[in-house]
């Protein structure tokens, strides 16, 4: 099976610092591909380059065969590259439904149709409700987003990503700050999403990573030192020395 999203030789330099160096990875539909590494290993920079927030200094990114290296972020998002943020980036003053609806609207924009109320847009309303249901927030739709619990906000972050109907999910630490119950719920959600999406998961919770990932890539100082199945990663000497420590 060929990869939906691929990068080859992807490099990002900030002045003299090389944050990501010559990274080549493939992301396939039906796989959770975890990227792990210490702080400063270049994981977030990698996500930012794949989503289009940061231009690559070198290398190539393809989506379903199209070279998207020079595409701006909004165009990549409309082509199916969805992302969530490490720091929660919801719109706290809007309702939960409106948060998701606004994200769904990107693909059904019709900005010139000013006589139509945004709230009555049938497409984005339906997609937003589906996304909320998918993320387990269906009952919260009318609540103000700012009033959700931390876990709820993280779920909404995912729902907003789903509302853009992405094919690729780039998830930056979706489990950060979650309790064990919330973590279980999020992992169930990821398992449900897996069949239809190519998922890149950046995460520090190693137990969660080994529970859900089909493939694990280990980054150290901006370089990939190993990329393999969880079992192979667990027994890899280099990884044990560089990162996993007691694992």
């Amino acid at each position, binding site marked *: 099976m060929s990869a939906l999203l691929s990068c080859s030789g992807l490099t990002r330099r900030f002045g003299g610092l090389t944050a990501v160096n010559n990274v080549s990875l493939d992301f396939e539909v039906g796989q959770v591909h975890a990227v792990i590494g210490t702080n400063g290993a270049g994981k977030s920079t990698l996500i930012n380059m794949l989503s289009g927030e940061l231009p690559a200094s070198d290398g190539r990114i393809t989506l379903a065969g199209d070279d998207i290296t020079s595409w*701006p972020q909004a*165009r990549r998002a409309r082509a199916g590259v969805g992302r969530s943020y490490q720091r929660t980036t919801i719109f706290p003053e809007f309702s939960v439904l409106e948060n998701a609806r606004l994200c769904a609207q990107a693909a059904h924009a019709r*900005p010139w149709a000013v006589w139509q109320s945004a709230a009555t847009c049938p497409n984005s309303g339906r997609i937003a409700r589906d996304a909320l249901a998918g993320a387990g927030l269906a009952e919260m739709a009318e609540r103000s987003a700012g009033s959700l619990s931390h876990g709820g906000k993280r779920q909404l972050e995912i729902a907003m990503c789903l509302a853009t109907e992405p094919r690729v999910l780039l998830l930056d630490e979706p489990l950060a700050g979650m309790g064990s119950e919330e973590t279980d719920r999020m992992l169930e959600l990821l398992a449900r999403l897996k069949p239809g999406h190519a998922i890149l998961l950046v995460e520090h919770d190693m137990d969660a990573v080994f529970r859900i990932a089909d493939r694990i890539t280990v980054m150290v100082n901006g370089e990939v030192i190993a990329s393999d199945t969880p079992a192979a990663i667990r027994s890899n000497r280099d990884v044990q020395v560089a990162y996993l420590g007691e694992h």
Partner: protein
Amino acid sequence: MTRWLPLVAALLLAALPAVLTPYTTDLVVKIVIFAVFALSLELLVGMTGLVSLGHAAFFGLGAYVAVMASPESDAGNLVVLAAAAMGVAAVYALFVGALSLRTKGVYFIMVTLAFAQMAYFVFHDTKLGGGSDGIYLNVRPLLGPVDAGNKLHFYYLALAALVATYGGLALLRRSRFGHALAGIRVNEQRMRAAGFATYRYKLAAFVLAGALAGLAGFLLAVKDGFVNPELLSWHESGAVLLMIILGGLGHLRGAVIGAVAFALLKELYSTPALVGSFLADHWQLTLGLTIIAFVALLPKGLIGLLERTK
């Protein structure tokens, strides 16, 4: 209940000329025109989160077009002239917006200010628009039986412009475009990640705001029959920004209330019979202190006061 308030206010305004003296009617017309100007800036600042300190450039440009495009000794066509004023303001807004929207925050403020001052000095220091003395509009424009030179006709023209601007922006606010602007105001990064080409949305808002400011400038030029470069100066940009802050950002009615309050306070403080001749000569001092007090005591503006009593 309060949702009908704008309609009630419009009906009251429509009935006013019957009971007011010519001087007061003139003041109301001026307030109506400044309300259109304030609404145009509210689209940028309150709805999109773009704080511009150069909005008077489009206002002044609209005013100059009204005079310069009018025939020398004949009445121009009202609709053609208004469209020309809005069009020229929109084109300049497209140019300024395309460049300034590449910056953010305080840099955006400085760049918009710089472009406005540039336009100001073009009119101030060249013979293009009569230099620092400005120019007169000899004959007010007409449209069939509607004569902008007739005080009553003009009153209803200005009121119609305010109602159309308010109604149009209210529609826009609840549309998908308006919601996208609100999203950009709260978190532009997130909007881009969702797939919105945010730069284009902001540019569209900037051009529309420029065109509406041009409409307000056009009305003021026709009302006064006179334009000068001060209409484009940063004082004017600052005054309209104060209006919407005073009224309360984030509400269309806040912009209108702010325009009313600003004009009435200015009128009050510059009337010698009420405050004495010394203070009347230095009305900027009392107005400034009042605005500082308002902003300190009512961080949400005058509209916050109304909401609190509800």
